């Protein structure tokens, strides 16, 4: 796997910035509260939820267990449907494929539907560098493209901005009035700008929610209709997606859609469900003349190779994990760097890009399991965070990129000493007697205590341990 060494992402700086931005925190809190409430209303029957998510997990695990076979069938059936299938192992390859398609046809403008994979590719900047203008057509993506930012959320890319901020941005970039703009008026402004672009663009680029192996169908859901425009109006449609997204057959799509839309936005179904099965045929009134599918790896094969980390690839990108995350809601999506924020980002990004580039991702969790509780395909996110902590410390199997890069001899020695004390009753008795006798004399400025006492009083050791107290009470020791 080719992997260019990158700078270490400074998560700590991002966290610091996020925590101190009161507007940002208020925006996130309001938005996440809304999303959590809407989702909860969709899953009021715990039995239905339990049943449906078990099914979701089964579908995704089954698909992954046959991944090589399903990808072969997907290629075959897409090809039969007239969809050109391309494979890309890394970002450079994927970008070159898309650039090639566009340049051969002399295309200089493209419209884009929402695609996180295209963010992994930094596709807009790449195309821009080759004189091709890529315009985001999803409202949220359109907003952050205007603002020159990255998405802060995988479903709601501009959720960190409130209405006033968006009105100001439009005023600045588009010359509209910053005053008295409600959500509807802002949407109307964007829609008007985008209409013309759809008409003139040479190609549309989109993501895919579920590529279906059995039928060679690309399932794409959205609420704004921009996805349908992008995939039907321009003469060329290029879809990009990760190899892990494939599902076996059409029956698998229905339960996953039910889980995805309800988990993501609390909708029973999205406004548009696009099932794309090839270019315009015979008497078709619309649709592109050409459809391409670019299947990307970008480190996924490595995640796939280990049976435990493979579970990361079950993800259907619903964002429920970040909507419910007490860390995400306080630091905001941009703090995480990379493309995927929140709990899924914490486990996926270091696996795709390496623990050396994202060393603080695995530790930035209290392991509260709020994400695990809501994940519709039952990814054991907390267990995966612990696994990445092991790998980072060099105590795992070495399967994750840059395993051992966060090893610390001092920490190793401290945990060894801890284990020696806590696994020997005699040593523990001596240590606990010492701690209860003099532990409180430790100054609040002692290394770990200093961080603790920044907002809390020092924990106080009891005068006598439970062991001794119960012995004195005559509680049986057997």
């Amino acid at each position, binding site marked *: 796997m080719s992997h260019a060494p990158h700078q270490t992402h400074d998560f700590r700086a991002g966290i610091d910035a996020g925590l101190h931005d009161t507007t940002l925190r208020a925006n996130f809190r309001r938005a996440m*509260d809304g999303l*959590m*409430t809407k*989702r*909860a209303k969709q899953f009021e029957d*715990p*039995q239905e*939820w*339990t049943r449906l998510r078990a099914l979701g997990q089964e579908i995704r695990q089954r698909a992954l267990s046959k991944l090589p076979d399903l990808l072969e069938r997907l290629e075959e059936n897409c090809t039969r449907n007239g969809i050109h299938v391309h494979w890309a192992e890394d970002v450079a390859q994927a970008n070159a494929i898309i650039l090639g398609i566009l340049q051969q046809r002399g295309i200089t403008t493209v419209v884009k539907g929402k695609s996180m994979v295209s963010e992994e590719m930094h596709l807009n900047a790449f195309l821009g560098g080759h004189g091709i203008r890529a315009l985001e057509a999803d409202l949220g993506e359109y907003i952050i493209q205007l603002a020159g930012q990255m998405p802060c959320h995988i479903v709601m890319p501009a959720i960190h901005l409130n209405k006033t901020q968006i009105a100001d941005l439009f005023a600045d970039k588009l010359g509209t009035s910053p005053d008295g703009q409600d959500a509807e008026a802002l949407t109307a402004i964007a829609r008007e700008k985008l209409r013309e672009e759809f008409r003139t663009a040479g190609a549309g680029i989109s993501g895919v929610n579920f590529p279906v192996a059995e039928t060679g169908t690309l399932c794409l859901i959205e609420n704004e209709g921009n996805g349908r425009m992008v995939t039907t109006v321009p003469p060329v449609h290029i879809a990009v997606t990760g190899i892990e997204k494939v599902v076996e057959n059409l029956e698998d799509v229905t339960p996953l859609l039910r889980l995805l839309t309800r988990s993501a936005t609390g909708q029973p179904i999205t406004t548009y469900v696009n099932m794309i099965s090839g270019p315009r045929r015979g008497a078709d009134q619309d649709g592109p003349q050409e459809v391409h599918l670019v299947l990307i790896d970008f480190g996924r094969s490595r995640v796939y190779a280990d049976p435990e980390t493979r579970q990361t690839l079950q993800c259907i990108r619903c964002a429920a994990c970040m*909507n*419910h995350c*007490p*860390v995400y809601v*306080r630091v905001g999506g941009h703090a995480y760097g990379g493309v995927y924020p929140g709990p899924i980002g914490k486990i996926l990004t270091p696996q795709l890009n390496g623990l050396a580039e994202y060393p603080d991702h695995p*530790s*930035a*969790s*209290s*392991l*509260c*399991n*709020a994400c*695990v*509780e809501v994940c519709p395909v039952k990814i054991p996110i907390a*267990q995966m965070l*612990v696994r990445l*902590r*092991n790998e*980072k*410390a060099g*105590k795992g199997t070495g399967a994750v990129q840059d395993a051992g890069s966060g090893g610390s001899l001092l*920490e190793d020695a401290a*945990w060894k000493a*801890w*284990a020696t004390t*806590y*696994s020997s*009753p005699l040593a523990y008795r001596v240590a606990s007697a010492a*701690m209860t006798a003099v532990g409180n004399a430790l100054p609040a400025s002692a290394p*770990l205590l200093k*961080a*603790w*006492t*920044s*907002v*809390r*009083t020092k*924990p106080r*050791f*009891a005068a006598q*341990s*439970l*062991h001794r*107290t*119960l*012995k004195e009470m005559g*509680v*049986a*020791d*057997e």
Partner: protein
Amino acid sequence: MTSGSLPAATVPRPLPAGPVTEVYLFGTCLVDLFTPSAGVSTVRLLQREGVRVIFPQGQSCCGQPAYNSGHPEEARAVARAQIPLFSKDIPIVIPSGSCGGMIRQHWPHLFAGQPEEAAACAIAARIWELSEFLLHVLKVSLEDHGAPETVTWHSSCHAMREMGLTDEPKRLLGQLKNVTVAPLQRERECCGFGGTFAVRHADVSAAMVADKCADIESTGAATVLGGDCGCLMNISGALDQKRSAVGSQHLADYLWERTQ
């Protein structure tokens, strides 16, 4: 209202066959050194129901601190030392949802493929968090002798999401006729403890516990109760630092004190 999450949809655990006359107590390392009173109250609550309590003096810790910090070998060494101490086929009661969750959920994973796997799984199946044991197994009915008081309840993440508790602690509190439980607005949100998380990402943890304290104070409760010493150490430390009037206590101590 905005907690958003669902009650854990767990199948009720099978109860021990026949009446329980004897249990082990797993005290946990935090209770041992910081809040031994919670362990003592646990013993008294159990003994009052006619249950004989065994406390193996060789015990120390479930291994969670090392496990969560990326040091499984050390976690295993400590957990392994506990296994032979709880060999009798009787329930093990633990006054902590987090340590209980470690044993119940993570020991089977930690010992997978190890010689102790079967023994670890057997212990995992016998571990009971105090409130679920009092309510479901012993079916206690508590008689309140205290003055009217309003308290609030902090739900530990691991008690809910690893041990699968729903409202057991609140149902026990509901038996106390003079006690009103004023709910937190975000009862299901983490307090920010998370072991080493609280020192590694001290600023995020601080923001979380600050919000938790504000939520607690806005209930008007005199005391915040919890079932986990980690959460309580975090919350009470933060309340004390800001000189809050709200006190904090472990559920075991509170139940025992009010029912004598």
